[in-house]
């Protein structure tokens, strides 16, 4: 059967990046799904208790019969600790993205919807937020507030909103000029109702894309903070902590590093791929070139 004539154009637009969107989406959804299942049901995946110390087993190299990814300086199983790290990282990433998304979407939409001073004010706030490197603020806040799962998740959420707000702001600005939004206003439909029934649903694809990228970025920020010894409490099995501990043993036990490195790369790759896939799907649907 012959394809309609529009097809080659859209395919070049998406295929030009070397991927086609359904595959990217499927692969990333599969990887992320697996990782979230691991995070939720982690006890089933442990080889041994990740907190169990056994100094007689310290710094063992990876082996199929013993520790699959080796053991660390305290004789803890690297594989089980990497698995334990999933709940911490994915949890903080998810909660941080939700908080950042909530703040970013509210600020972005209200900045774009309002035509008066509020818009000038909010878009300035967003500009300032974007221009300043947020990691520094996050580091400082975490130091004072204290380390731990919730303080990290909240802090990262609180500093991650500017990017989301800017994207949402730009998209809402174009959406509010659409005919159906104007028509709704002429019919006397109030702002709030219009935002919830016309703007937010239309924003969904954009939000999905930016949320996937924010999630990846928060994962990097979180494990970076832990790596500096400023994030997770010392001794907690998180990837950043494990990398930090591995630095002392790079010559004698490089495997301490490889487990968490693989976990970080795979997770971030999957999250970025999800963002790319969603973006490509959205572009192919609207036929728009960005």
């Amino acid at each position, binding site marked *: 059967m012959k394809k309609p004539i529009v097809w080659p154009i859209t395919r070049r637009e998406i295929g030009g990046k070397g*991927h086609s969107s359904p595959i990217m989406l499927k692969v990333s959804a599969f990887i992320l799904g697996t990782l979230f299942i691991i995070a939720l049901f982690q006890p089933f995946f442990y080889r041994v208790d990740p907190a169990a110390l056994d100094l007689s087993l310290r710094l063992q190299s990876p082996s199929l019969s013993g520790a699959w990814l080796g053991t660390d300086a305290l004789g803890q199983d690297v594989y089980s600790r990497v698995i334990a790290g999933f709940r911490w990282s994915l949890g903080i990433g998810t909660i941080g993205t939700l908080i950042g998304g909530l703040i970013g979407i509210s600020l972005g939409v209200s900045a774009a919807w309002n035509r008066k001073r509020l818009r000038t004010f909010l878009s*300035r706030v967003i500009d300032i937020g974007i221009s300043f490197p947020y990691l520094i603020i996050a580091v*400082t806040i975490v130091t004072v507030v204290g380390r731990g799962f919730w303080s990290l998740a909240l802090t990262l959420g609180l500093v991650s909103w500017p990017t989301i707000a800017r994207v949402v702001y730009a998209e809402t600005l174009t959406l509010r000029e659409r005919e159906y939004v104007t028509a709704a206003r002429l019919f006397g439909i109030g702002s709030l109702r219009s935002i919830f029934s016309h703007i937010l649903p239309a924003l969904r694809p954009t939000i999905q894309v930016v949320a996937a990228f924010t999630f990846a*970025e928060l994962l990097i920020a979180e494990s*970076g903070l832990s790596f500096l010894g400023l994030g997770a409490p010392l001794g907690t099995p998180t990837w950043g902590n494990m990398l930090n501990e591995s*630095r002392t043993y*790079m010559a004698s036990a490089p495997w301490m590093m490889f487990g968490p490195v693989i976990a970080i*790369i795979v997770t971030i790759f999957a999250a970025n791929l999800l963002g790319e896939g969603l973006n490509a799907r959205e572009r192919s649907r609207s036929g728009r070139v960005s």
Partner: protein
Amino acid sequence: MKQRLKAVGSRLLQLVVLLGTISTTLFLLLRLSGDPAILLAGEGASPETINAIRADYGFDKSLFEQYLIFIWDVVRLDFGRSLVNSQPALGFVLKYLPSTLHLTFLAILFNSLIAIPAGVWLGAKPTQRRRRVLSAIVSVAQGTPAYVIGLLLIQIFSVWFNWLPSIAGTGTWSWVLPTATLSFALAPNLIRVVAASIEDTTRQDYFRTAKANGAEPRVLLIRHSLPNALLSTTSLLGAQFAFLLSGALITEYIFAWPGLGLILVQSITNLDFPTIQATVFVVAYLVFFVNLIMDQVFRIADPRLRRSQL
């Protein structure tokens, strides 16, 4: 000229608001985190010492009074003395600034040297098969955090092959790994943006006209695509520069590079609040100047912007 002044003024206002927010946040955080006098005196200090510190720093005054004094100090750029080595915090931080700038410039330089040619090559004919391979590599590499790259580079080049030093301050060779780490961390993003902008110019009307007039591919690329593509790339480079001033935090820590990032990590570990504050302020100022310079670069490079608002 008037517009230019207006643009500078608006940036300046941004800086003031930013610094005000940061200092207020820091002030509140420090006061909320418990009695700062006890924090400053350290563990096991006698009550007399704590009282002396309280009077010395003015912690016995009301919170509002303290805040006013604090803001006045900030305005005069007096951040107090470091709690660790009792040097004036700002001077102490500024001593480490050249080192960070050095690393930042190296990283930006090599990042551009790798990424711009790669991006141009990729963007010129994005559908060619071998270019797709590069684009696939780039999308995997994108988002790999700098500390992962740094650790792997150390593992390979310092531990296994013992070719390059992993600690800063041991001569020119010790610059290689930190520069490579930051360049590799930044390059994928830049490659993508350059490629996308080059690709974008090929869809513009003026490009099609030039092509229809029979311009050679090389001329098309260099004279018609590149200038416009690099313009949009410049803004990313500016953002990366601003990011490096603070984002080199982790890389500086890995390689013990004596810069702002290392100072920040150390002062945070020691709860040395005057130094933390001075570092954050220095970074904010630098980001402000980078943004200001980028604004001007755009104005000079793009004639269209000179006529438009701001």
